[in-house]
């Protein structure tokens, strides 16, 4: 078997037929990880013993009681809690923290029969677009080691793209699943806000965060999405709505679907090659029977500014709990309580996290709240309305996932603003709480993957999966 190239569905079927056992799969996965890790460094910890035990456990389960992903290896981002294992968000401040409980989405993974192989690298507290802001050091792009894998779920995307695991969970606050998926040539889906429980996901910006799947193809992403979706009584923002069988919609085709192309996403700053590839793919979709029309999302320009008020504001409160009192890093330099906070947080957080805490604290301060936070919330409503109006006319919106392909390591580290612009096309989706998927739409001449983003109306993950599957077919025939 050619494990690194196999999809989760193919693996599952092999396992189900008994062609290979979960224990063998675990061995194969760790062998692959051992091979790839020195090159890409996608994992921050592998759960060798736990995975072996888990495989043994799974083998005891009678056939009729096996979950839909029985025996399939998965990786989880280092901001998802798994009871008894460290969760650090790639931050020094959570050094030594062992999760006392398991995140709802991770629990769902295990109930589906998966084997959790390890936790993956990320930008500290999911703040970043390159996976370079990590206490564990950078992850490299499997397609080109001098390039970043994207972020913040760079470890998950690289692990999937390099063949280490067929599936991984990431989290997406402003593009953190879709952007690294685009950079690594994987499929990454951010569900509708509230579709997947956030319980056990270490919060960055609570009103924007969603957990989602990263996979090698659309079918796998649909299956994993189905597994983790659903109402959770432990997350008040999780939606109590039925979960569709997303896998069913994947192959349904795009005939009769209306697709919108927002002009604001195809202007300045977009690489020509990306624009060409996206537009030619759209042409192919048209040939497959989809209707295409140009639309406008007029407030797009304000999305990044809005996001960089709201997300840091929420983060400044969410990260206040990391104070060295209860868990994680505690400074030994402090002489009094005030210093205890200052030294612990000064030593424990990296520069990008500090920058965002400062931004958020400022935006919420007395005298600035109305001008920043409140104004940003109003603009957020306008951005939502843009999409709402657009979806009166179209079933899905297609944009590039990123303005450029994966950039070089270190290239944007000293220029945070440039780094922030890497998420210019993904951020509006989080502000509007909509589902979106990034699917590979070809490669540049330098063989770097290009991501195409499909955005859908709230709870219409099935729409975007249909379109994404069609894109996948187009690219496969072109190859």
């Amino acid at each position: 078997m050619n494990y690194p190239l196999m999809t989760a569905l193919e693996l599952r079927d092999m396992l189900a037929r008994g062609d290979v056992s979960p224990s063998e799969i675990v061995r194969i996965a760790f062998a692959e990880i051992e091979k790839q890790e020195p090159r890409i460094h996608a994992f921050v910890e592998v759960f060798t013993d736990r995975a072996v035990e888990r495989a043994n456990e799974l083998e005891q389960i009678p056939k009729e009681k096996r979950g839909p992903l029985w025996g399939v290896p998965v990786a989880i981002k280092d901001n998802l809690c798994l009871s008894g294992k460290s969760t650090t968000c790639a931050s020094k401040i959570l050094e030594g923290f062992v999760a006392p409980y398991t995140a709802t989405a991770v629990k769902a993974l295990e109930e589906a029969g998966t084997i959790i192989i390890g936790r993956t690298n990320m930008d500290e507290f999911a703040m970043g677009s390159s996976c370079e802001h990590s206490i564990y050091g950078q992850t490299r792009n499997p397609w080109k080691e001098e390039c970043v894998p994207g972020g913040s779920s760079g470890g998950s995307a690289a692990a999937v793209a390099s063949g280490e695991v067929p599936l991984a969970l990431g989290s997406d606050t402003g593009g953190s699943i879709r952007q690294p998926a685009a950079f690594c040539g994987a499929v990454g889906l951010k569900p509708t806000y509230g579709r997947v429980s956030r319980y056990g996901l270490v919060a960055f910006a609570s009103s924007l965060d969603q957990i989602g799947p990263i996979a090698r193809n659309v079918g796998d992403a649909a299956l994993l999405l189905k597994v983790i979706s659903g109402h959770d009584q432990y997350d008040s923002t999780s939606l109590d709505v039925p979960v569709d069988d997303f896998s069913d919609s994947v192959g349904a085709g795009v005939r009769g679907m209306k697709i919108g192309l927002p002009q604001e996403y195809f202007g300045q700053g977009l690489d020509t090659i990306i624009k060409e590839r996206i537009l030619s793919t759209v042409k192919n979709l048209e040939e497959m029977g989809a209707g295409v029309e140009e639309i406008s999302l007029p407030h797009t320009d304000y999305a990044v500014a809005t996001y960089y008020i709201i997300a840091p504001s929420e983060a400044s409160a969410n990260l206040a709990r990391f104070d060295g009192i209860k868990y994680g890093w505690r400074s030994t330099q402090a002489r009094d309580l005030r210093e205890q906070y200052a030294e612990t947080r000064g030593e424990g957080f990296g520069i990008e996290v500090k920058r965002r805490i400062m931004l958020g604290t400022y935006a919420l301060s007395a005298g600035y709240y109305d001008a920043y936070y409140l104004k940003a919330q109003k603009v957020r409503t306008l951005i939502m309305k843009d999409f709402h109006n657009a979806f009166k006319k179209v079933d899905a919106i297609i944009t590039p996932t990123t303005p450029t392909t994966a950039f070089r390591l270190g290239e944007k580290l000293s220029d945070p603003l440039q780094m922030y612009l890497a998420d210019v096309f993904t951020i509006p989706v989080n502000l509007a709480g909509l589902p979106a998927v990034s699917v590979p739409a070809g490669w540049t001449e330098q063989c770097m993957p290009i991501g195409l983003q499909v955005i859908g109306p709230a709870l219409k993950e099935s729409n975007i999966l249909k379109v994404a599957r069609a894109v996948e077919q187009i690219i496969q025939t072109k190859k």
Partner: protein
Amino acid sequence: MNYRTVIGLEVHVQLKTKSKCFCSCSSEYGAEPNTNICPVCCGMPGALPVLNRQAVELAVKAARALNCTVKERSIFARKNYFYPDLPKGYQISQYELPLAVQGWVEFDSDGKGTKRVRITRAHLEEDAGKLLHFIGTTPVDGSLVDMNRCGVPLLEIVSEPDITSPSEAHEYLAALKEILQYAGVSDCDMEKGSLRCDANVSVSATDELGTRSEIKNMNSFRAVEKALAYEVKRQSSLLEDGQKVIQETRLWDETTLKTYSMRTKEEAHDYRYFPEPDLVPLVIEKELVARLDREMAELPRMRRARLIAQFGLSEYDARVITQDRYGADYYERAVACRPPKAVDLKQFAKSIANWVTVELAGCLNKAKISIEASPVPPENLARLVELIFRGEISGKMAKEVFAEMFGNATTVDKVISKRGLKQISDEGALSKIVESVLLNSQNIVEKYRNGNEKVLGFLVGQVMKQTNGQADPKQVNQLLHKKLSKSE
């Protein structure tokens, strides 16, 4: 110069829920440190709050008992500050859109008739934990955090600055406590921290408001009154000396009986409130408010009026009995045990009132027991009073019997049968004793017959002695009269 005092109070009461405000941990008081905790109330990474419906219902009930308008939609906010007893680094509270607004509390102000203090707002929030300090001790040298209290639901009740004196502040708190206890939403026990109070106070010689100070750290209603009186005096003398009052937060020190500056306005926290993104807006349907209104317990002023009308109680007795809900409940349960034909309702009710306000109150006070934990339940007290009315025990004996009932948590019937205390009211038995006394006191009988009626008292005493005090002296008197005159 005459200064006008303006006081507003911020009161926090703990709502009587079984579990905490945002998780399912028990909100029980006094458990071993850090035993009622979970990832949610400890602020573990990734944990999320889920609102307790019971907390909402109690908050609505409280708001209605305080005549507030309950908002159909209110939102939670994060109040951000660092302190070791605050595990998330923010408190979940309400800020811009509170649960309830615009209510009032009415009470009878000493000598001034009915006073109304307006309520600005009432909102739901979570409590913080508790720090335990072990400075310079072994094995722990430092401070420890007990998070049992983290996330316990509180209702913050903010009054308008309608209070005009420290004693009125005390009256307001007593009235508030009474109402909330009656509504069944809180124990309002300041000692257990289920009621806490901060006070804002200013004085002014003009119509304009003076600069206020906020006082914290008062542990009883009396402390609130004393701290306010101190502060009024302090501010007045500053103004008297031509100095200015500065806006600041001050701490009351119960040992020195003074307030001390804690922080000035400039040093005040910027709490950076913003809407809590982990919770959806709280929607309270009109139907819920209507249902809770229907279920609302009778509030103290209404209950007092009813007790006076129904049982003919005096104003004074009614006030004492209704001081707390449990006292009033106790009283009514006792009165309800009256044997309907044997005793007149008003007589019985009056007698129960006397027992509750004098003997029972005295014993409870001495033993530092609250009335709901009384070792003599209302049914037992009612039985005691019934036996007095039936003439089976004397009033004097009853006090002794009660003391034993209270001390040994036992019933009146058991005490009587154990001590053989039953009053000898059987005339035949008593006659025999009287006759034997007369027979053994011939010389005294002589004296009586010679006109010395004073010796009758001696004879009564003899009979009482023979009966171990179990005879009714009045009856003995009558019998002696009868016997002595018969023999003539």
